[in-house]
C-alpha cells in the first residue's frame, strides 16, 4: 500500500514548477528572471536543505540543481529525494570538474546535466524535456496506481479469470480449465471489465500488459 500523501499527489496534480537550487545569489536571481521570461513557474532555494524544507511529494515540475553547494551536495540531495519518494526529474548544472560526480548521479535515475557555461536555448529545451518527462511519469504512475487499486477490488475468482483471459484463452477454454460453465465465465468477465474501468477487451489488455512493462 502506498503512502497516503502519495495518493493525494497522484490524484491532485499541482501546477508544474521549476525548482532552482543554487547557493549563488546571482545564479538564482538570473535564472528566475530567465525562466519567468519563458513563462515558467519558478521557485528558488539557496541550499539543498532549504529545498527539502519545502519539497512535497506532490511537487510537480523539475529540479535545476547546482552540483557543488555547501551542506548537502546536488547528488546527495538527489538520494534524499529518492528516499522521500519525491520523483522530480533533475537537471544538474555542472561546473568545471563536476562531470565524474554527475555521471555517478546519472546512474541513479531521471537525471540530465548541462555543463557551465551552457547555452540558454539548450537550458530551456532541457527544462522543457524534464517537465514533459515529469508529466509523463506522473501520468504513468497515476495509471499504475488506479490499476492496482482496481485489481485489489477484484474477487479471487475474477482475478483468476482475468489472468487466463490476458494470457489469451477463450471463455470456453477458461471455463473448461476452471471447471465452470461458459456462461459463468462470461458473467465474471463482464463484471471484472467494469471494475477495471475497461471499455473493451483491447483496453483491458493494454492496461494489464502495458502496466506490467511500466517502470517507475
Amino acid at each position, binding site marked *: 500500500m502506498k503512502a497516503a500523501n502519495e495518493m493525494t499527489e497522484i490524484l491532485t496534480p499541482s501546477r508544474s514548477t521549476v525548482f532552482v537550487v543554487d*547557493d*549563488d545569489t*546571482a*545564479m538564482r*536571481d*538570473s*535564472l528566475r*528572471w*530567465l525562466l*519567468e*521570461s*519563458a*513563462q515558467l513557474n519558478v521557485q528558488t532555494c539557496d541550499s539543498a536543505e532549504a529545498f527539502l524544507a519545502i519539497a512535497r511529494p506532490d511537487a510537480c515540475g523539475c529540479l535545476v540543481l547546482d552540483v*557543488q*553547494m*555547501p*551542506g548537502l551536495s546536488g547528488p546527495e540531495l538527489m538520494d534524499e529525494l529518492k528516499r522521500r519518494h519525491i520523483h522530480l526529474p533533475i537537471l544538474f548544472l555542472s*561546473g*568545471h*570538474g563536476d562531470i565524474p560526480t554527475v555521471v555517478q548521479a546519472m546512474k541513479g535515475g531521471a537525471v540530465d546535466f548541462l555543463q*557551465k*557555461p*551552457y547555452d*540558454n536555448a539548450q537550458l530551456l529545451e532541457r527544462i522543457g524535456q524534464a517537465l514533459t518527462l515529469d508529466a509523463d511519469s506522473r501520468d504513468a504512475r497515476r495509471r499504475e496506481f488506479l490499476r492496482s487499486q482496481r485489481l485489489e477490488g477484484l474477487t479471487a475468482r475474477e482475478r483468476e479469470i482475468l489472468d487466463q483471459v490476458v494470457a489469451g484463452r477463450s471463455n470456453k477454454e477458461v471455463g473448461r480449465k476452471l471447471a465452470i460453465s461458459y456462461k459463468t465465465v462470461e458473467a465474471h468477465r463482464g463484471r471484472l471489465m467494469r471494475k477495471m474501468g475497461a471499455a473493451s477487451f483491447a483496453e483491458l489488455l493494454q492496461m494489464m500488459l502495458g502496466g506490467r512493462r511500466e517502470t517507475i
Partner: protein
Amino acid sequence: MSAAPVVELLRRAERQEPRRPSYEASLLFEHAAMAIGHVRDRQLQRCNRRLETLFGYGPGELNQRNLQMLYPSYSDYVACGRSSGRQLERQGSCRIERLMRRRDGSLFWCQLSGQAVDVSRPSAGSVWTIEDISARKQAENALREAQAQLEQQLAEIRRRHQEDLARASRLNSMSEMAGALAHELAQPLAATLNYLHGCQLRLKQGDCTSEQLDGVISRAIQHTETAGSIVRQVHGFVRRHVPETTATDLHALIGDMLGLLDHQRRKLGVRLELLLAPAPPTVMVDALEIRQVLLNLIRNAYEAMATSPAEQRLLRIESRPLAGGRVEVTISDRGPGISPEACSQIFDAYFTTKQDGLGLGLAVCRSIIESHGGSLRVASNPEGGACFRFDLNTVMNP
C-alpha cells in the same frame, strides 16, 4: 719608515760634536729616499732635498720657514700642530695621515711620522719623515668604490632574484587556480547571459516594463564588471610586474583575494569570519605584492584545512590598528597547525610538504612584507591550527 734612526744619528752627532752633525749623518740626511725635516717651534730648521721636491720648492727655499705654508689651510695647520704636539709630549712619536699642500697649491695625501729629538726637552724639536701616499689613498678609494658598487650590484641581483621568485610563485598560483578561476568567471558570465536572454524573450513577447528591464540590465552590467575584474586580477598576476607604490585600501585588497579564491572556499565548505577594523586602513604599498601575500596566506590556510573535519573549517581574517599608525592583519585557520620544528623552515624558499608545492609562497610573502618595512610571523591558533600575522604602516588621514 720611521724617523727614529735619523733621530738617533742626530742625537749621536750632538753628543760627539754638539754643533755639527757627522759627515755620514749629513750624507744620510741629504740622500735619503725619504723626505726628512727637523722642526722646532713649528718652523722647519732643516730639510733634505727630497722634502723640498716633494712640496715643489727649490733648494733652501724651506729652511727656517713656518710650517703653515705646507698645510691646506690655517685651521689645518693649527689643529694638526695641537694634536701632534700632544702626542709627541706623551709618547715621543706620532703618525698622521692627512692632506698637505704643494707650492702650486695642489693638495696630496701624506703620511707624517714625527719623533721627538728629546722627550724631556721639547725645545729640541722633532724630526719628521714625510711620505707621499696619494697612490695608496687612491687605491683605497677605488677599492671602497668598487666594494660599494659590488654591494649595490649584489643587492640588485638579490632584489631581481626575489622578483623572479615572486613572479614564479604568482604564475604557479594562477596555473594551479586555473580551473577554479574558470569557474569563478563562468558564474557571472552565466548570470549575465540569463538576464540578457530573459530580456530578449520578454521584448519579443512585449511583456515587460522599462523599469524592469533597467533593473535587470543593471544587474547584468554589474556581473560583467565582476568578470572583468577577475580577468584584470589574473592579468595583473601573470604579466611582468612594474613596482608601484600607491595609497591603497587594505580591506579592498582582502576582499579582492577572497573573491578570487571563493570557488576554492565554497568547494571546501570553509566558513569565513571577518573581524575588520571599523576604519578601513589606507596603506602605502605595492598593491600587487600585498595581494600576492594575501593570496598565498589564504590559499595555504584553505589547503591546510582540506583535511580537517568539515565542521571545523573556518578561516578568520582580522585587521587591527596598532600603536604608531600601523595595522596588523591576522589570518587564522583550523588546519593541523605547524610543528615547532617546521616553524623554523616554512619561510625558507623551496621548503614544502605539498605534493606539487613550490615552497615559494611564504618566502615570497616574508620578503614582500619586509620590503614594506613590516614583519611576517607565524603562531599557533589557540583554537587549533596556524595563524599568520603581518603588519604594515598606514597613511595617517590628515
